[in-house]
């Protein structure tokens, strides 16, 4: 019987641990906790409002759907655009409109109805080896060129960053041409899609491939990390399609959930994230491009130079998201 009592105790402790106090905000984050935690700590310092942040790589939308009106989530932070739209489409968001948010975030980076707000931008870059080929004028289209057979590395095609890139190709060229392109890229892969964007840069360094696809801030973060610096220094960052439409850009962002228990405080946090302090932290700590007009990127990011951004309206990425996922299955990109 002692054992039973003990078991009950352990159970209570475990349940207690996972239950949250009511006055704190709960943030579900697709972005790694270590990145957002310092910024949220600043928020707590200034406002006295506590924040629980919980990180999940996948399935936040599914979770909130299931939790319904009982969901403890107030705010969701996403790392790409399609996930913002997914939340809106599943009717999991509440519209917010405040003058602060609207003056901080330019119109092209927010929903006209205030269902979602973007916070940072990132570029889908192409990396080449410093010693073998040096900087190159590349286009995404060229990745399918047979001359690069066995020379390209990428993470899983199904990763949201790659899905968004494929969606942008569909938006520019139509589905049939995008499919031919995707088949071409698959035929050029040096190895089966695997690992994360960092791993692709490392593969270029080791000579496993000549061109890696990866987001700008991964490269920036590797240069900041003493253990990975030498890897990142072996490659150069290239902004694709500079001669024509510009480089593909994706955004991270936030939404207020539909059943947010603490709407008022959650809006305060949203405003905080769009303001100078937080935007600067995104730029300096995570090497992203802030959306707020007067906040500059970090000196390191700025050193990569000005570049032309693909002017495709961002909602197109969401429009072609499903088509892109299906295309990736059809050409068996990851298999």
């Amino acid at each position, binding site marked *: 019987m002692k054992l039973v009592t003990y078991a009950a105790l352990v159970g209570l402790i475990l349940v207690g641990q996972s*239950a949250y106090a009511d006055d704190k905000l709960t943030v579900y984050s697709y972005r790694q906790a270590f990145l957002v935690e310092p910024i949220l700590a600043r928020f707590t310092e200034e406002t006295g409002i506590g924040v629980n942040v919980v990180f999940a790589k996948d399935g936040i939308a599914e979770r909130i759907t299931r*939790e319904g009106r009982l969901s*403890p989530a107030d705010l969701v932070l996403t790392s790409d655009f399609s996930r913002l739209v997914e939340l809106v489409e599943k009717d999991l968001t509440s519209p917010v409109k405040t003058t602060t948010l609207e003056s901080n975030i330019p119109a092209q980076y927010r929903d006209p109805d205030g269902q979602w707000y973007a916070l940072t931008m990132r570029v889908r870059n192409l990396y080449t080896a410093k010693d073998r080929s040096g900087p190159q004028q590349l286009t995404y289209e060229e990745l399918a060129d047979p001359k690069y057979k066995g020379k390209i590395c990428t993470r899983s095609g199904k990763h949201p960053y790659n899905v968004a890139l494929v969606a942008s190709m569909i938006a520019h060229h139509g589905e049939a041409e995008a499919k031919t392109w995707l088949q071409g890229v698959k035929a050029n892969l040096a190895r089966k899609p695997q690992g994360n964007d960092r791993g692709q840069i490392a593969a270029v360094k080791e000579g496993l491939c000549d061109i890696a696809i990866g987001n700008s801030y991964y490269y920036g973060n590797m240069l900041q990390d003493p253990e990975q610096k030498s890897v990142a220094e072996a490659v150069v960052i290239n902004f694709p399609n500079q001669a024509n439409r510009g480089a593909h850009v994706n955004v991270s962002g936030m939404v207020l959930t539909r059943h947010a228990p603490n709407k008022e405080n959650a809006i305060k946090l949203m405003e905080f994230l769009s303001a100078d302090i937080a935007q600067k932290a995104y730029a300096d700590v995570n090497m992203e491009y802030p959306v707020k007009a007067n906040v500059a990127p970090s000196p390191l990011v700025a050193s990569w130079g000005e570049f032309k951004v693909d002017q495709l309206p961002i909602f197109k990425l969401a429009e072609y998201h499903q088509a892109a996922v299906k295309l990736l299955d059809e050409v068996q990109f990851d298999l």
Partner: protein
Amino acid sequence: MILGLARSWSLAGYAMAALLVLPLFALIFQALQPDEAVFGHLMATVLPTYIINSLLLIFWVSVGALLLALPCAWLVARCEFIGRRYLQWALLLPLAMPAYIVAYVYTDLLDYAGPLQRGLRLLFDWRSPQDYFFPDIRSLGGAACMLSLVLFPYIYLLARTAFMEQSLSLAHASRIMGCSSWQSFWRLSLPMARPAIAVGVALVAMETAADFATVNYFAVPTLTTAVYDTWLGYGNLTAAAKLSAIILLVVFMLIGFERFARRKQQLFQKQSRIQATDLYRLTTKQTAYALLFCGTVLLLSFLLPFGILLSYAIGYFEKSWDSSFWQLSLNSLSLALLTSLLCCLMALFLMFVRRISPRRSDTLPSRLASTGYALPGTVLAIGVLVPLTLLDFGINDLAEYIGVKGPGLLLTGSVVALVFAFCVRFIAIAIGSIESSYKRISPSLDMVSLTMGQSPMRLLSRVHLPLLAKGIFAAALLVFIESMKELPAALLLRPIGFENLATHVFQFVSDEKLEHGALAAIVIVVVGLVPLIYLNRSLEQHSG
């Protein structure tokens, strides 16, 4: 009298079994819903590859595990050579290694950027991957090797026992009738051990079908990873449930195969056992070969990966060892402890009901409860969430109806969902262990106790419990190790913000930073070793 009493016990048994089998039915129910053509799309594109990959993986892992296990089992059971006694238990050690951890270590070692290939490049002055051929570890073959290395002990353990229990006079007879020792092995020993080996293979195959982390890391798409992707990538629970149903079909076929094999096993085990003096003494040369083989198996499956993990853990000790590490370990330990206690209590109850009930149909609850073992973690997660979410909403609706504030997500938002899932998955282990202990208690003891006017509760606490103690302890240990290792269910069902050792390791590895997770991985392995050593000892006592 006992009939009347037993009825209420037996009803309670059915209720418990119904609870434990709920996820399975929820899953089947979910799979029968319409799903907006996602499943059709999958079927037309990637599903055939997923199915073929899953079946190929199961096939190759079974073959690989057999090739590793059978020679080891036969050598250890039937031959005498230096080191045999150590190998006997050392070959069980890989069981403590979760397959995904072994996979991570070997990838680090054998990848293009790993020390082995780097060394080769330096040695032969190769510059690029085009200059030489090296098999890709992150492939179906690689995954099959990794899984064979950690799963072979299941077959080894069962085959060893079977070889040890074979009658020697039959072996002698076969030799007298002119069989060579090889012929005697192929035509007599092996066929006689076949049922036990088949059970082992079925277990290995089921574990392979359930594996998520290894194939996910190796980017080998199988049905198990497809369930995860379809659920969370496509956001389609119903299509994911349909995929799960395919996995279930495969697993139930395996169980059928295992049952079929075990049905025959009864016939074989009635002979006298091999004595130590009957062991075939190996010559020096033979001993060298035997040691070389068993030693290599042990080295590759346990010593090498463990050593590498240990060196990482020491190297990164300061980075990993902080207050949150205690929290992680505590979470893992308390979760595993709670699961093993609950499983033992429920299993004991179910077996007791079966014991005292005069009706044959009362074997049903424990049989039903055991089906959970067949559900791979990703599949189980769906089966658990569907009914518990309904229940959560029911509780809150009820609370609002009577005018109090609802408690929120009492079940799915807390560790309850996780513990429930673990119990559903692992209670079969506890049932199996307690069942075999019960078989050794003579039913006449029950009759004596009952005719003396003792209640069933007293019978359980004063007669059965003391006699079952060892079996229950073994059950608790086994469930404990499995709960420490289980990854996919923990990943999908943990309350938001809850991390344990397994999910912690997984997180680092998906960031390609195994070194930082090594300490947690070591803890999982070491904690798993203790019960193994205990189990092996009790096994040896039991057989000796």
